[in-house]
């Protein structure tokens, strides 16, 4: 019976880490609420039922994909065309998932799958921010972060679907800028924490230049992927020169 207090302690500690993950998710809640709400409104406008919008949030759980879904349904897009477009738009998750993988080496493939299945731009940003402050990314912490963001997203899109009949233009409240502000915050915090400011700014500036450049020849989502790959490569080459 001597092991009991220790077990209790461990259980409590892991609960703490899960709760800390939920707490660290709080800054993203506002941007998720507004973007999720907007996604619900757009789905409603496209003629999707509340049940369909809810199922979309539960199974797809990707803002850009859900906007495209609603837009292409409204425009009578074919099943194959919609699925293909969503696939291309979310391909950047390959990069996020790859960048996250070194932190979860000791986890089983099943746990890695569960963590990956709830990966988003924002939870990735928060996790990397956490890591750049030299804090370990624990499994429990990551689940807390992921699950809080996931539930918040489902609730936000449902609210948008339900109240969408009355609010036709969420842009009037400045809410559409919440996502951009979120990305700005994650970018600045990331660079500030990593203490390799000159190199990071060079990578960031090249990503901006290349995303604009690539937008002339390809779609917005492909431009983001191309710019990320090129800018990360530039950063790697700069490191080699040193």
């Amino acid at each position: 019976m001597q092991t009991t207090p220790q077990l209790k302690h461990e259980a409590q500690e892991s609960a703490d880490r899960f709760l800390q993950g939920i707490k660290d998710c709080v800054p993203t809640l506002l941007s998720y609420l507004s973007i999720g709400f907007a996604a619900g409104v757009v789905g409603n406008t496209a003629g999707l039922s509340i049940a369909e919008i809810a199922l979309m949030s539960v199974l797809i759980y990707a803002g850009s994909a859900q906007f495209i879904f609603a837009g292409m349904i409204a425009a009578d897009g074919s099943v194959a065309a919609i699925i293909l477009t969503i696939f291309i738009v979310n391909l950047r998750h390959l990069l996020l998932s790859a960048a996250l993988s070194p932190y979860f080496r000791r986890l089983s493939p099943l746990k890695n799958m569960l963590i990956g299945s709830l990966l988003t731009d924002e939870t990735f940003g928060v996790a990397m921010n956490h890591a750049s402050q030299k804090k370990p990314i624990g499994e429990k912490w990551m689940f807390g972060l992921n699950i809080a963001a996931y539930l918040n997203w489902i609730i936000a899109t449902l609210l948008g679907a339900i109240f969408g009949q009355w609010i036709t233009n969420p842009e009037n409240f400045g809410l559409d800028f919440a996502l951009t502000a979120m990305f700005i915050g994650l970018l600045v915090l990331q660079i500030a924490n990593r203490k390799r400011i000159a190199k990071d700014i060079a990578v960031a500036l090249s990503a901006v230049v290349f995303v604009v450049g690539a937008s002339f020849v390809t779609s917005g989502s492909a431009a983001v992927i191309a710019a990320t790959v090129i800018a990360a490569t530039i950063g790697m080459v700069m490191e080699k020169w040193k």
Partner: protein
Amino acid sequence: MEIRWHILLIIAGASIVTFIPRVLPLMVLSRMKIPAWAMQWLNNVPVAVMAALVGQELLLSDGTFSLLEDSTKILAAIPTFLVALLTRSLLGTVVTGIFSMLLLRMVY
């Protein structure tokens, strides 16, 4: 409250094609020894992808370059950047962004 058959089909297909890119690298790469140069490359991905997303949001509209078309986004980004730099608070940054945009839309 119904779910139509062809909508269900698209949701099922879309959930598979969003699931695979999210989980595959995590499941495969976390089992492999990644060479140093690849780690350096991956190390740059967070800053690169966030900057690309910011650039896309601020400088592109509907996927094309449009600096002058919607300058409110650029203007709203200035206080947002400043608050992020000075306070290092993610929540403060998001709130500043929303309020800046709200004020700009009222003025314009």
